[in-house]
């Protein structure tokens, strides 16, 4: 009797060793990703959660923290900055990456040199490059000295009558104003306090980010170009297609899957950007270079307003998920064939 029941339970307990070996990793990652996110969402819905004081009471209304967040001048500026930054940075990094990849792939002896040079910044920490770019775009040094040495400054002054002194990251200007347009289009748009335009101070930061990451786009495109069958290029040559025609009708369309991958990864990097801006410009004058990532960090660890920081981090998560989840779902379908 006892041996029989032991036999049955052993058969029932026979589980897949692959699943058992994968389980510890999965459980750890599950806790660190999903349980932690749920905890943060719960804090974002509390009125006054603090580490020492586990008070999860809801505010009235229950979404009160999010209301405070979206009507906050600084967070509105952050959302504007993150949109402007992402769009301009993506265009710059992907276009430069594509151009560099095409040119590098056509080099013979110098191919490895150029590829390594353009990807080099990607291996260096954002804090390091941020500290360096901070000085290159300082109004009293760097680029402004080059403008002076090269005579561009004096030429500008002769033509326009005013001295050329770009303020770079310390510029308070915001170019353009879309507030009245947005207030008609988005719900609650009439409570927009920050000027919705392109902050001039953001441009050097966008340049530095593209400088650092266009090599990544280039590497992805180079891998894509290498996988185009040689026959296609030979056939194009036999048909006497021009170089432009070959790239426009054959090479670039076949790079689209790579372009999607690079764009998704660069967009998620850009929406999360923190280190580079923290080291290069900080929040800027009038939060002109502030980002949601900095806002979260400072709300939590400087202002000790944990629910507000948690709510801002949930907004970041939603933005990143909107870009990444469709891509991961497609990946999951692809692996199930």
């Amino acid at each position: 009797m006892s041996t029989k029941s032991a036999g049955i339970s052993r058969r029932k307990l026979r589980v897949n060793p692959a699943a058992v070996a994968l389980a510890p990793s999965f459980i750890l990652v599950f806790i660190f990703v999903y349980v932690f996110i749920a905890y943060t969402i719960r804090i974002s819905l509390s009125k006054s959660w603090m580490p020492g004081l586990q008070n999860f009471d809801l505010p009235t209304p229950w979404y009160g923290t999010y209301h405070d967040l979206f009507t906050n001048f600084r967070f509105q500026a952050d959302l504007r900055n993150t949109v402007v930054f992402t769009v301009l940075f993506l265009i710059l990094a992907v276009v430069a990456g594509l151009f560099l990849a095409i040119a590098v792939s056509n080099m013979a002896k110098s191919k490895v040199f150029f590829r390594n040079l353009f990807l080099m910044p990607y291996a260096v920490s954002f804090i390091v490059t941020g500290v360096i770019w901070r000085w290159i775009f300082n109004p009293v040094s760097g680029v402004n000295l080059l403008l002076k040495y090269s005579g561009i400054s004096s030429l500008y002054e002769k033509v326009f009558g005013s001295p050329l002194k770009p303020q770079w990251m310390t510029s308070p200007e915001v170019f353009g104003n879309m507030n009245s347009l947005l207030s008609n289009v988005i719900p609650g748009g009439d409570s927009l306090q920050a000027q919705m335009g392109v902050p001039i101070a953001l441009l050097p930061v966008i340049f530095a980010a593209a400088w650092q990451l266009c090599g990544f786009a280039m590497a992805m495109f180079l891998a894509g170009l290498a996988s185009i069958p040689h026959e296609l290029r030979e056939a194009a040559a036999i048909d006497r297609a021009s170089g432009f025609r070959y790239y426009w009708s054959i090479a670039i369309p076949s790079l689209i899957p790579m372009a999607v991958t690079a764009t998704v990864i660069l967009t998620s990097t850009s929406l999360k950007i923190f280190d580079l801006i923290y080291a290069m410009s900080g929040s800027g004058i009038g939060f002109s270079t502030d980002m949601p990532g900095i806002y979260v960090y400072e709300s939590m660890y400087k202002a000790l307003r944990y629910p507000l920081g948690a709510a801002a981090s949930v907004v970041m998560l939603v933005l990143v998920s909107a870009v990444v989840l469709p891509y991961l779902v497609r990946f999951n379908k692809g692996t199930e064939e």
Partner: protein
Amino acid sequence: MTGQVQSFVGSGKTSRRVQFALLCLFIPLFLIPFYVVLSASFKSSAGADVTTMWKLPTEWTSSGISAAWKALKGNFANSLLMTIPAVVISSLIGSLNGFILSKYKFKFSNLLFTLMLVGMFIPYQTILIPMVRFLQYIHLYGTIPGLALVHIVYGIPITSLMFRNFYVSIPKAIVEAASIDGAGLIKTFVRIILPLSLPGFVVAGLFQFTNIWNDFLFGIVAIPNPTMQPVTAALNNLSGTQTVDWNVLMAGSLIAALPTALIYLTLGRYYIQGLTAGSVK
């Protein structure tokens, strides 16, 4: 065959020369920050002024570098103590996972894997509060092992993905032969797969080394004490200090960048393999 190569479109002699000239225009753009850092690092404190940024040192000295090293060496050691164990452990875990996910697929294994991959993309800001509470709970808050643990767990998705893509090229027949001989999953992995995995470890290890060494956010949140923080945090603190000489700050940047830059310069091709192997295609 070589004759045909030249007849490829877009690689004709003139077109190639134009492209070469355009690429050369990009060289200074990419080298400028490296020039600024290197030339300033070898200036003396008296000769280092941001208004003479573009000039080479009038007298070459290593005083800036030794002052920066004195300020950063403790944090540099912290970075090594955090990075090396985290790279080794997360790569080992990733190799086992990658092996299972490519050769021992089971029902829902792809779904579990996709759920894990989400961890690669989330903004880490969203998990900071519970992460600190978790580290406090296991008494590792404010310690380097605690910080390394965080890097290990968030490194599992990317290393699993890299090894999964790596093991796709290992024939399934090898695994099947081992299982006919009666070897279980772990035995097959340790005896047969691990010895074949050195290239995978180089690629995943380099990639993880760069990621973890360059981290800043986890370093400042998981460890509040500045002397225990990694070198990126210490460099940022140095940069915020008004009294630091400019040559010392640039030398500090050089020191913080050196390990990953050296790895990149010597083993760059493995690093580039990692970039494409680590992307969800």
